């Protein structure tokens, strides 16, 4: 006599072979009541519509790829397929272009940030990096403007980001050969001036509690402009002195808190 486990397994294999539960039970009247019940139950489990992931799963994974990769001191080969995948998804599904207009707090914003991080990681030359950093600084600035238009308080994180991305862009531009540096210094100077004017404009539209932050940010733009102009005079291979940069970073941290660190 067969063990019930064995009987059930044989019945399951017939089921998987395409027979219906009724056909199997009819063909095997010797099966115990329990085996018959369990076969029916297993067929029911197969027929249930099982849970499906939400769209957020892809967003979460892309955000993880973006968060983990660039923060490493080197880019292990292990991460390359993950980045290739993320880039493909973003480009293929056009999610990146849809998310460009998203603002913090919306569902597409993490995709926007993930796309930016991936672009940064894939940028190899200092000029590519400078270009992307400058664009990111500009994006954060526009997000601040958008929030002000929605009568929201100044987001310190965004303020710190627009300043720090501009500083990173300047650092990348400082590594360029002289033939390209003049062009970049002019762009950086123009952008710093624009940032400063936006901050000045925002002071008229934001609550008084935000004014000190905006004034500090405006002062930092002025200092960066001085830095850019002094770089034009230095013509050294490394651009702005490390000490000056460290001072700027310390100042940013003191003003904005820990969020100021990119």
């Amino acid at each position: 006599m067969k063990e019930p486990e064995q009987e059930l397994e044989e019945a399951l294999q017939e089921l998987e072979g395409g027979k219906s539960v009724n056909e199997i039970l009819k063909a095997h009247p010797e099966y115990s009541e329990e085996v018959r019940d369990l076969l029916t139950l297993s067929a029911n489990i197969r027929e249930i519509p099982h849970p499906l992931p939400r769209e957020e799963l892809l967003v979460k994974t892309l955000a993880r790829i973006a968060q983990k990769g660039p923060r490493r001191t080197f880019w292990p080969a292990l991460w390359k397929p993950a980045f290739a995948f993320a880039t493909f998804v973003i480009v293929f599904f056009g999610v990146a272009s849809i998310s460009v207009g998203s603002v913090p707090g919306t569902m597409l914003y993490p995709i926007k940030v993930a796309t930016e991080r991936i672009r940064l990681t894939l940028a190899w030359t200092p000029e590519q990096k400078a270009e992307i950093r400058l664009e990111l600084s500009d994006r954060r600035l526009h997000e601040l403007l958008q929030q002000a238009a929605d009568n929201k308080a100044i987001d310190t994180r965004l303020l710190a980001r627009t300043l720090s991305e501009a500083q990173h862009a300047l650092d990348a531009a400082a590594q360029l050969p002289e033939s390209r540096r003049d062009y970049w210094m002019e762009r950086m100077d123009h952008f710093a001036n624009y940032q400063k004017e936006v901050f000045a404009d925002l002071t008229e539209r934001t609550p008084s509690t935000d004014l000190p932050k905006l004034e500090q940010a405006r002062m930092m733009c002025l200092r960066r402009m001085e830095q850019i102009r002094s770089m034009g005079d230095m013509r050294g291979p490394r651009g702005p002195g490390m000490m000056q940069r460290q001072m700027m970073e310390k100042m940013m941290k003191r003003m904005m808190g820990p969020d100021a660190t990119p």
Partner: protein
Amino acid sequence: MPDTDKQPDWLDRAKNGDAKSISQMWGEYAPRIYRYVRYRVGTNADAEDLTSEVMLRAIRRLRDVRQSFAPWIFRIARNLLVDFFRKRSHAKEYQAMEYKMESASPVENPEHGTLTRATLERLLPMLSGEQQEVILLRFVEDFSPREIAKQMGKHEDAVRAIQYRGLRRLKELLSEENI
């Protein structure tokens, strides 16, 4: 039952970092891993986090695939689930509460005598971990007892016994609820 021993067409290209092939892998396996994990952990957020981690690990370790792909990726999921339950063992009460809250809103209206997803989600955690795993791998993911045995490091007969006891326990629970 699908042939899980057969390697997917995209595997070799995915191993070389081909993004389109990796996306195919995502499309085929992210939903399968998600539902396997979702039944085990009970909440959407945990299931998403774990699935995301499984898929990332799989993408990063694609070159290590020497055996059939499906059992390989499910083994990653299984190992992560073990870590997950180990870490969460101190927070069982919280987990139970969270699970109860998510299960409180049924996805479908159960008819008498019909097994629904909501019922399965509610009753499955009352089985032992091994029983849950065998039932999910066999009846939701279509693995054969031989493949499940390999994944769990057990003999096929042991898997069949676990499968039988698991189904019997589930049947008892359903009877207790008059389903």
